[in-house]
Every structure is written in C-alpha cells, then in structure tokens.
C-alpha cells in the first residue's frame, strides 16, 4: 500500500436521488488496494444503493466512481472490473456448482480446459474441492456462501463487493463465516467492499469501516477509532453498546462539563465547545464503568453513584448488571467483572459504580 | 301421514291442477320460421308455450341423432333429409294425417312431400316453407352470369363466392348438362358425375374469392361489392335487392334448385298435440303470410300469397318468370351413401390448390 499507488476504489461526492428522496448524499471515500472496507449502517440508509452504483446497476445522479484510477461512469456492469456477491447470493439455480463458477470465464471466452482448471483451483481454495457437479440447491448455507465468492474470485476482479452476504445465515454459521471471509480475503488478496448492518461483522473483519446514516457517511476509520473515539452521537450509539442519556449542560469549563440528565442525574463529562444550557447526549460504555462493593474503590472517579442491583443478565463473558440510582431512578447498564468478588452478587444488593470524566462521551445534542 | 306420502299427494295435486292440454312445445327450426308475433298469437290461442331453438338441416339431424330423437317436440328439416335419416337412425315418428288440417295446404306440395317422406308406408313430413337456391348477381358488374358454370368466368377473377355444400355440386352438375337426381339410385354413375363436377370446381377455384359459410357472410360480401356473383338462396338475393337494385336473385338457365322445409315429429317428442296445434295454426293464410314476411320465403299455405306485401311479390316475379317456376328442380330424398361420397368430393375440392 504505497502512497503513490492509486486506490482500488474511490468515490467522489457520490450522490443518488430517487424521485423525491435522496438515498445517497455526497459520499466520499477511497479504498486502498488489498484492504477490507466495510460500510456499516442501519437498514435503509443507502448501503445497497452505493453498491449498485459501484457495480453499475444504477447511474449516480452526480459524483464519480473510479476503479484503479479509471472513471466508471457510463461503463456497463459487464465491463467493470468489479464483481458482486449479492444479498441473497443469486447463484444460478439452473447450473451446477462448476457451471456457476465457470460462467464468467465462459463469457470471457476462456478455453474449456482452462475453465475446468481454474474452476477446480478456486474450489480448492475455498476448500470444497469435490462439489463441482452438485446442484446449487444441494449445498448448505455456508457452502453456497463460499461458492458465491468463488464465482466472483475466479474472475480476479480488482474489487469484490459483498452486500450483506451473511444476512441469510444462522448465528453460529455467521460467526464462523466472519472469520472465514477474512481468511478468504487474505487468501485472494483482493480489495473487499463489504456492507452490513451488523456492527459485529464490520468491526471484526474490516481494516476500515464507514458508518453510514440516512444516505451520508458519519465517520470513516479503523474499528478501534470508531469505538473509542466516535465522531458523532450516531456513531457512539450505533457502534458498540452504551448507556445513553440526554440532558443539559449546567456548568462548562474548558473541555470539562457538568451535565444534568433529564432523569435528574448529575454527570461529569469531557466535551469541547459546550456552554451552559446546551442540550447534550452522553454515552458511557458498560465496560468503562467500575463496579465496587465499597465506595473507596471508585473514589478517584469523576462520576460515582451508590446504586442498587435491579437485575443480573448472565451471558458468560458478556454478562451484565443492571443497577438503579435511587435518587434519580435512572437505570445504568454495567459490565459484570469476571472476578470472584461479584460471583455471589444478588438482586437488591447495594453497590457503588464509578467512571472517569473521559469515559463520558458528550455530544452537542441534535436529536434530543 | 308420513312426510313421504305428503309429498306424493302434493305432486299428484299439482299434476291434476295443471290444465291437461297446455304443453311446452320445443321447436327446432330455422331463423325466421317462428316470428315472435306468431308465437304470441299461438300461445294466446292455445295456452301452450313455445321454446324455439334455431338450427340448420345438418345440425337438426345431428342433434336428433345424438338424443335418439329426443329433446324436441317438432322439427323442420328439408324434405330430402327425412327418409334417409329415418331409415338409418329412426329419429322421427309417423305423422297422423287425420290431425292435420290438410285443406289449408297446397295439394300439389302436400302430395309431393308425402311421397318423398314415406318410409315403410308411414308418412313423416308435412310441407311448410319452400324456396330455391340459384344465383345472386350484381347486374352492373356481372350481367353475363346466367348459369352456375358462369361463376368460373375468368373476368370475374376473385369476385365470386359460393358454398362448399351439396347444392353447389348438384347445381354445377345440372349446368354441365348432367342429371344428378337421376343417378341417385346408382352410386357408380353418381360418382362419375361427382368426378366431373370436382374437376370443374377445382378448375374454378382461382376465380373464387372465398367459400362462404354463413348467410351474413354472403350478404356482406355481395353488399360491399367484394364479390359480384354468388350461388345462394333466393331470399338472400331479395334482401340485397332492397338495398341495391343492381343485385337480384337470378334463376339459373339450368333451373333453380327447389327445397321444401317440412314439419316432422321427433321420435321421442312429448307434446304431439301441441305440435299438431302449431302446424295447423301456422298454416292459416294470415299467419303463413306473417312468416313469409319474416323469412322471405313463401309457404305451402293455400291462399297465403294474397296477404304478402307487394314488394316481395314483385321481387319474386322478377326472379321467377313462369317458365322459370316450371324449371325448378325439386330435391328428391337423398340416400345416405350419396351424401357420404359427396362429402369426400367436397373435402377434396377444399383441399385442392
């Protein structure tokens, strides 16, 4: 990934308007060669629309799409060096697996023997060497998934587009395929553009993730950045779990602010450019909150509250404790530490919670 | 009383209550032979009700054959379609002449029909409407057409129409100087005649625009001027004459072909009394004249002509000068075997190209 090499895919001010609504609003991004780029966003935010413009099924209203530096405007789908794995895979039901994979090569006019060789090779690489003669309907969900990818990869595209390819799979298989997809990307060493509304998929696999909302990108960055330094309230709320409160700034000094939530809880947060009376949203990750039996354990924290346990949500390593502030009545979601100290925590127990000022992510409220 | 006997009593009462002589007459006939006005008068006079089904010769016989002579109480095939089908399929029942008011019927027609429709000594038909087939000619464009064979004239190329049915075969045979009726009894001789006619019809085919199959089709072809000469029924010609004086029915030089539509009783008819009532009713001169006005053809009712309008009479007289009337060739009963070989001839003509 040298700087002078043109990115595999670049979108400039990409916009798509349908009659009355704007599905994609001036989106800019570039994907370096060989990387795994995800677009993450809620259903209906315009992800598929971007994909279809890149693949050539939709003409952008304005903006440009470049693949390896070459503009794709006016190039029909069958002449673009991108291939797409469809939301429901769209394998050809009238052909067997080998015919499915060989389809693109046949279209390129590759010789029969060569097709057979390359089809066999790609089947090896997806570790399904013996299924060439099977019917598509006889495959398992995971096998189909891999065949759909192989069908594209055999053409050695510059960019592979994947539109929520794991959407139709059950949870277990989805977890497994996440890892496998990442491995496949490394194996083929191709640029993947992956869209999903599942943050788990995006965070695990991607080198870089774009969070999208209502047709526009909110933030583009590495998974860790999005999680720890969300740029907007939307990103903070959409990526990862968080306690969310809305309230007003009661005092602001430099980058420090004191906020009183609508429920009546007083919180200390960090946020720039805030002044007294501003509406804000505050996000606190459950795992950023310290849980303690005694108040001394949270003494150093800017925020500390004595609370009562209202529920225990056991889920192995991801177990949670729901606690309530008796003063304001606010519920707080706290990660359960995996230590013996809390093994016998019970409903109704009196505990203390606390977190630092930096752990309270504060955004000027737009949606409050 | 049990419910069952209640039911029996009710049915019995209903049957008794109905007037014994009022029936439903199911009439199988041609278009125009049972005008609504006549039916109304008849129902008023007799208390019977009439249900009419319109048909043609072939379908009448086919329908009666399919039901073994059931489904209708009175039918009206042509007189040449009675003896043959009766001998073959037994679909009619004999007519009781004592129930017919024979004084109302022209004696010569009554006798001729009786002779033609007698099977094993029983009479099966009474004459009703008669007419002819011959030529319909547009004098302005095809004045030269005087006989069936003139329909082959090259200068009428694409402007001629006729049916592919047996009257055409017979008409052409007469026009070619042959006598098909005389050969009815001799299949081999008849086949010989048919072969000559077939050759002629195949030779004439290029001149023909289309073989018409329904009366409306013929009228449209002649009226629009798409054809200027046709072989058809006299009434068609008279109807066209009313719209366009150039067109009229012409009795061919070799003789028009005369047909008589009759009354017959289907073998399983259930309302014979009503059937006899209808026959006697429509043979009254005034009623018969009403039918003539509707159908365009004259009837065997004695003295009905007086009641017919002058226009129709005038058209009739133009088409039939006295010598042409004498020249009419009446169809004798057609033997089944003859119809079969005629059919083969017709198929071959149609398929030839």
């Amino acid at each position, binding site marked *: 990934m040298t700087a002078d090499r043109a990115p595999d895919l670049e979108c400039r001010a990409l916009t798509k308007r349908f009659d009355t609504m704007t599905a994609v609003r001036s989106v800019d991004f570039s994907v370096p060669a060989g990387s795994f780029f995800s677009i993450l966003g809620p259903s209906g935010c315009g992800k598929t629309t971007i994909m279809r413009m890149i693949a050539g099924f939709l003409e952008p209203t304005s903006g440009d799409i470049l693949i390896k530096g070459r503009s794709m405007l006016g190039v029909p789908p069958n002449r673009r060096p991108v291939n797409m794995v469809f939301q429901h895979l769209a394998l050809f039901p009238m052909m067997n697996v080998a015919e499915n994979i060989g389809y693109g090569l046949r279209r390129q006019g590759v010789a029969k023997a060569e097709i057979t060789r390359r089809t066999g090779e790609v089947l090896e690489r997806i570790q399904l060497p013996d299924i060439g003669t099977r019917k598509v309907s006889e495959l398992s969900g995971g096998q189909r998934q891999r065949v759909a990818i192989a069908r594209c990869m055999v053409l050695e595209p510059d960019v592979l587009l994947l539109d929520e390819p794991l959407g139709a799979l059950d949870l277990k298989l989805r977890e497994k395929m996440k890892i496998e997809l990442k491995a496949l990307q490394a194996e083929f060493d191709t640029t993947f553009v992956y869209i999903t509304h599942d943050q788990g998929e995006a965070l695990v696999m991607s080198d870089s993730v774009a969070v999208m909302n209502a047709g526009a990108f909110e933030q583009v960055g590495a998974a860790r950045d999005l999680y720890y330094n969300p740029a907007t309230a939307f990103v903070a709320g959409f990526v990862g779990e968080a306690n969310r409160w809305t309230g007003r700034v009661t005092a602001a000094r430099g980058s420090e602010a004191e906020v009183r939530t609508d429920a009546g809880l007083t919180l200390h947060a960090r946020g720039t450019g805030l002044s007294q009376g501003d509406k804000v949203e505050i996000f606190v990750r459950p795992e950023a909150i310290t849980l303690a039996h005694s108040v001394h354990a949270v003494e150093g924290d800017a925020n500390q509250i004595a609370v009562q346990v209202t529920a225990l949500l056991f889920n192995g390593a991801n177990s949670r404790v729901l606690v309530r502030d008796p003063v304001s009545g606010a519920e707080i979601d706290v990660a359960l530490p995996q230590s013996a100290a809390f093994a016998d925590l019970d409903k109704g127990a009196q505990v203390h919670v606390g977190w630092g000022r930096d752990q309270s992510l504060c955004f000027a409220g737009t949606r409050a | 009383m049990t419910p069952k006997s209640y039911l029996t009593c009710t049915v019995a009462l209903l049957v008794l209550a109905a007037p014994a002589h009022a029936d439903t007459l199911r009439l199988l006939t041609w278009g125009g032979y049972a005008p609504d006005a006549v039916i109304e008068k008849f129902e008023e006079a007799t208390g019977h009700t009439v249900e009419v089904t319109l048909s043609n010769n072939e379908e009448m016989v086919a329908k009666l054959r399919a039901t073994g002579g059931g489904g209708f109480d009175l039918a009206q095939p042509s007189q040449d379609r009675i003896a043959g089908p009766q001998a073959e399929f037994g679909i009619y029942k004999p007519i009781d002449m004592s129930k017919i008011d024979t004084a109302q019927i022209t004696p010569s027609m009554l006798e001729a029909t009786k002779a033609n429709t007698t099977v094993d000594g029983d009479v099966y038909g009474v004459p009703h409407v008669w007419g002819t087939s011959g030529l319909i000619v547009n004098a302005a464009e095809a004045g030269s057409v005087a006989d069936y064979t003139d329909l082959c004239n090259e200068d009428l190329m694409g402007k001629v129409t006729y049916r592919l049915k047996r009257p055409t075969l017979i008409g052409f045979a007469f026009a070619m100087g042959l006598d098909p009726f005389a050969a009815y009894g001799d299949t081999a001789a008849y086949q010989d005649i048919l072969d000559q006619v077939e050759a002629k019809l195949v030779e004439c085919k290029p001149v023909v625009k289309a073989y018409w199959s329904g009366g409306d089709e013929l009228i449209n072809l002649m009226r629009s001027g798409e054809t200027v000469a046709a072989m058809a029924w006299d009434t068609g010609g008279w109807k066209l004459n009313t719209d366009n004086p150039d067109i009229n029915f012409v009795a061919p030089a070799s003789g028009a072909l005369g047909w008589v539509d009759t009354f017959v009783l289907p073998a399983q008819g259930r309302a014979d009394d009503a059937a006899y009532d209808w026959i006697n009713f429509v043979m009254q001169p005034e009623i018969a004249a009403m039918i003539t006005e509707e159908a365009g053809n004259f009837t065997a009712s004695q003295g009905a002509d007086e009641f017919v309008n002058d226009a129709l009479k005038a058209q009739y007289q133009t088409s039939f000068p006295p010598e042409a009337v004498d020249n009419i060739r009446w169809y004798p009963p057609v033997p*089944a075997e003859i119809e079969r070989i005629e059919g083969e001839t017709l198929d071959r003509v149609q*398929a030839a190209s």
Partner: protein
Amino acid sequence: MTRRLGFFLLLAPLVLWLGLLIIIPHIDMALVSLRARTGPGEYAPSLQNYGDFFTQPLYLMTFARTAIMSVLATLITLIIGFPISYYIAKIARGRSQASLFLLCLIPFWVSELVRTFGWIILLRETGVISNMLQWAGLADQPVEMLYNDAAMMLGLVYTSMLFMVVPLTTTLESLDDAVIEAGYDLGGNGFSVLREIVIPHAMPGIVSGCIVVFMLSLGNYLTPTMLGGKDSLWFTQLIYSQFIVRFNWELGAAFGFCLLGASSLIVWGMLRLSGQTLERTMGEGA
C-alpha cells in the same frame, strides 16, 4: 375407517366428473370408431375407419397441414409472447404492470365469434385497414388481407396469446432479479444472460405455454373456418363435417382419436426435446 370414508366422499365429485364427462363418452366414442356401417341402421365391428385415415392422402395431408400450422402458430406466439411477458414480469412496475396484463386479458371479455368478426372487419377488402392504406396513399386499390393462411395465423396467435403470456409471466416473475443482475455482473451481455439464465429458468413456463397454445390451435374450429382461405382445410373441420354434415359418426370418432393420439405424441416430443417432464411444467409453469 371413517377418515377413509371421508376421503372417498371428498374424491367422489372429481371421480364422477372425470367418469361421466370424460371417460364414459370417450369409451363410447372409441366403440363407435371401431365399427363400420354395413347397411341402413346396421353396423359391424371394423377397423375400416382407421384404415381410411391412414390410406386417404386427403386426411393425412389435412392432418399434417393442421399440425404444422399449429406448431408454427405456437412458435410465433412464443416469439411475440416472450418479450411481452418479460416486460410485464421484469420491467413494468405497479400500475403499468397490471394494466399490461389486463390488455392481454381484454380480448377474452368478448366471445371468440365476436373477436373473429373483429378481425374480419379489419382485414377484409373493404375493411378498415384496406381503407386506411388507400387513404394514406400506400395502396391505390383495395387490398384483400382476409381469406389466407396469414390471416388465419394472425387469428390463432391472437386467440392464444394469453395462454402463452400467463405461464411465461409466472415463471419469469419467480426469477430473482438479482440472478439476472449477477449474470451481467459476471460479464454476460443481454443475449448470453437470456440464453443461459432467463430461458433455462423459464423453460417450464415456455413448455407449458407451448403445449396449451398448440392444443388450442390444433383444436380451433372457428378461426380457420372464418379467416382461412378457400384452400384452408383444418382437421377439426373434417371432424365436424363427419359428425354434423355427413352423419358419419364412425369416421368422425376415428378422426377424433387419431387427433388425440397424434397430438399427445407431438406434446411428448416437445417435452423430450426440451428435457422437461409433464409434472414439472404443469406444476411450476401454470
């Protein structure tokens, strides 16, 4: 035991319907076809009627002509119907989709007779089209378009169109748009996507549409009679005239069975050629 009884009671109407209206008349017809007239009202068992069919060139020629023209009508209907169905199923949306479908249905709101008369009014020498051509100066004398095989073909195709469009539209609708797009995405052009993806998918619909249209054309009576020319003898006309005009039920019945047998053979051939089975085409296509 009672469930068994219920099952048979439910089945009874179907069995009765099949038995009374289809099987029994056919058995009767078969018996009629296997006898010959020996004298007035007398018949003897014989194969003569079938013999006639196979030895008279007229009958065989008429049958061959009818079958070939029907196959042709079926092909033309398919060629015209396929783009229409594709448009209805894949391109038109919402209201226009519904109205297009309705457009195919409209001809069936009037009787076949009226429909055929409509064509006569349009095509005849003094008809609408001929007049328009003269008015537009494209013809200097009346043009006769009626009474020939082309007019008859037009009538047959028009009458059959719906029966092709319905199964085709149904199968095409069941083809996921994404599959077609995948075809393009992987380098296919319009033609190869049609040949490798759309047509194979639509095959059951194509075959069932073709079977229905072929049978309808083969069994049509009115259209060949009214629109066809003076040479156009259709096999159903032969059957009609044997039954109705000639009173020769024996030969008519034999013709009927020959038609049934031959058309079954042709349909079987179509299925074999296209690699389909009857269950599949009728199950998926219709």
